[in-house]
């Protein structure tokens, strides 16, 4: 998958490049609006990650340009910005952005969202995610192990999918809690609920005899281990 990151903060850009190269994405970058325009005009990407405050203008201009053009209709657009007002988010989605993430964000969250956007827009990722005999059906939101169906609640499915999209990485409790309940839940507030969901999820997976995909990492978080 080919992604373009438009971000003028050098340190943040390097960080994202480092993280997503490990994910196996082909990453390109631009440090200004102008450079961003040039790149999307000349090349095609599966997903463009764009900051709003850029040298040379507002990142929203790039969304308008991409959405005003047939050719780029399939390109996923993910806005990453320090502006956290709801109105700003609504405005960007109305312009045609596929998702909006507020800074500072968790890289695991951005990673999961890139995959979700890419799947919706380009069909880059298939309708299911498979790890050995464990199959997550994304459209139906169901899980199978071999032939047997595993009944998960919405939240349990969301946790499993989030961890699976960040497979073989440690994902913090906080990232999962924010992914499930959004940013306005305080940590300690939501952890109790998270533990309960994880416990049930584990029980259901083990009842289906599908082994322990979920690892607990020293009280900091969890890891989906796919062999």
């Amino acid at each position: 998958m080919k992604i373009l990151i438009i971000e003028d903060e050098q340190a943040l850009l390097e960080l994202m490049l480092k993280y997503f190269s490990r994910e196996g994405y082909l990453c390109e970058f631009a440090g200004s609006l102008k450079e961003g325009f040039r790149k999307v005009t000349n090349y095609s990407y599966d997903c463009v990650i764009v900051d709003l405050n850029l040298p040379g203008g507002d990142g929203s201009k790039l969304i308008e340009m991409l959405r005003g053009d047939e050719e780029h209709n399939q390109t996923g657009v993910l806005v990453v910005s320090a502006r956290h007002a709801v109105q700003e988010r609504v405005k960007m989605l109305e312009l045609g952005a596929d998702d909006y993430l507020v800074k500072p964000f968790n890289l695991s969250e951005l990673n999961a969202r890139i995959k979700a956007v890419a799947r919706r827009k380009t069909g880059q990722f298939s309708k299911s995610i498979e790890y050995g005999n464990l199959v997550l059906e994304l459209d139906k939101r169901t899980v199978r192990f071999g032939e047997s169906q595993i009944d998960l609640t919405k939240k349990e499915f969301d946790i499993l999918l989030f961890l699976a999209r960040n497979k073989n990485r440690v994902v913090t409790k906080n990232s999962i809690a924010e992914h499930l309940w959004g940013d306005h839940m305080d940590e300690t507030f939501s952890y109790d609920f998270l533990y309960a969901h994880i416990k049930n999820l584990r029980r259901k997976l083990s009842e289906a005899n599908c082994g322990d995909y979920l690892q607990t990492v020293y009280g900091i978080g969890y890891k989906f281990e796919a062999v």
Partner: protein
Amino acid sequence: MTTILSVSLVFTLLLLSYVFIQYQVLLDRIQSDYTHLQNLIEEDRTFSLKEEVFQLPESAVLGRLIAGVMDDYKDIRQKKRQFTENASHELQTPLAIIQGHAEILLQAPKLRKVDYEAIGAIMYQLKKVSRLNEALILLTKIEHNGFSSNTRMFIAQSVEEQLEDFEPLIKAKNIEIKKQLPLNISVEMNDALLEILLCNLFKNAIKYNVSRGYIRIVLNAYSLEITNSGYPLNQAAEQMFLRFKRDDSFQKEEGLGLGLSIVRRICDFYQHTIRYEHEAGTHRLIWVFN
């Protein structure tokens, strides 16, 4: 090594936030002095800045003095707003970068338990600094009329939206909701501010509730009352509106201690009132509309 570096970075950030808060407190004091002065000017005609008063020699001196003070004050106010805005926004990016590096560090092979604990602590504190920062940006924005567009908002509808958002937590804690929400009652206010206000009220009502407790919501033309079961307070209820005052009966350090002061700011902004009543573990917040 990386860990020590990150810890000192977080420490620096916390220190910076502390200085920043002290600065705010100082400026708040100047502001209240100024408001007092301004009231004096408005009340007392001899202090009027009208031209005829300037013609008297003594008043002219006084007038110039006051005009000077006012200019200084406007300048300070302007600088305060700029400082808060800049400091807060400039902090967001380094915070994002530290957080990202901590996440990458977390993926390193062969980490020991102590390493995980250290990284966990960094990320936890970092999250706190960043929430603190967001809350301060919000407080400053309210103070400087950053939310000026008002619309007619129906309270019942907004309350229902909040309850829907919090439903998983309400269910998980087995809290019973009793509500009287007439549909026709509305206030003129900014939609984002109403959302923030209600969200903070309900968050507290759920967070500090007991398992199998209740929340009672009563709306009438003049007020919205939210009553909830909970634990007894160890301090005067009114103290809860002060910045960084949490009740110390909670051992776990949760929350920022800014939720209710944000609520009060919003009420002040619209000249509404908010009261906190408490009796033996029953908590009641009464928001009286203008």
